[in-house]
């Protein structure tokens, strides 16, 4: 069995724990605790969430979710080694944390590491196409600045099929990278 690692990062409430729970074939190891500030939900991840999923008969994927706040950057270092893919989750809403996104992209440096990267926007159920385009254009600018070729996908992290589409996309990007 070949084992590959995917890091799942993103701001508070972007759906990291949910995505891992949706995808994992084992009972996910979660490190959520009660939040002491208003973040729109009761709990937040402060450690590493972990789950696994089999990509095919020979390949297992380890899913490592880490908090997006910069004070947890020591956890980014824990997972940022021998990665097969990087998933950056963004929560759609009025507030745009482009600064936090920049820090994540700078730290994980997908282009420098030749690491396939996908940006997935969550909580988009009630967003119009125009609103989504406007929202994601800011992140597209940041990706261009860092020369990161990353598709931007819209997903519901509770939906298995949509969540799996991220893994399929990463798989395709890795195949292309190997062919080149």
């Amino acid at each position, binding site marked *: 069995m070949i084992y590959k690692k995917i890091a799942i990062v993103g701001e508070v409430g972007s759906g990291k724990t949910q995505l891992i729970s949706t995808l994992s074939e084992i009972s996910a*190891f*979660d*490190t*959520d*605790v*009660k*939040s*002491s*500030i*208003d973040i729109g939900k009761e709990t*937040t991840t*402060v*450690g*590493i969430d972990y789950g696994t999923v089999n990509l095919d008969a020979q390949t297992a994927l380890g899913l490592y979710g880490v908090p997006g*706040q910069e*004070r*947890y950057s*020591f*956890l980014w270092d824990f997972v940022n080694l021998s990665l097969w893919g990087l998933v950056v989750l963004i929560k759609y809403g009025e507030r745009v*944390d482009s*600064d*936090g996104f920049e820090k994540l992209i700078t730290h994980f440096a997908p282009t420098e590491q030749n690491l396939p990267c996908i940006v997935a926007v969550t909580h988009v159920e009630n967003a119009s196409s125009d609103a989504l385009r406007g929202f994601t254009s800011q992140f597209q600018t940041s990706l261009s600045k860092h020369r990161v070729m990353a598709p931007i996908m819209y997903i519901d992290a509770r939906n298995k099929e949509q969540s799996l589409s991220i893994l399929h996309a990463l798989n395709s990007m890795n195949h292309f990278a190997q062919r080149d």
Partner: protein
Amino acid sequence: MNNPEPKIEIRPELIEFMKELASSSRDVILLSIVTSDGFNLKTFSAKSLSIEFEKLAAMASSICALSDSSAKQLTGQGLKTTTIETSAGNILFMKTNYLTHQCVVTLVAKEGLSLAQARFIIQRLAEKVGSIR
């Protein structure tokens, strides 16, 4: 962008007790209480230590959450204490509650303080913090 922080009152009796424990042994070089989601509430540390309190709070919350989750998966029981032993001394983390908040207390001690003594001090701190109403 300014990061939000919890509005949690630091009671004088908490500060007094932390001061008392911190001065109980010169080998105690750090005592801290942080929220379980990684915000510093109060930290006393030796001047010789160069520590970013924000990072310390994040580390304490992560280590406790990882230890707690591991303990539950392996033994079915939650965390009591996490100990990191180094050649320079010990670091202990313990879960507690402060007012209505889940918190983590941290003790850093030089090698002169035995593990049992360090365990006793952090237990006292956790109990005192938990008794404040």
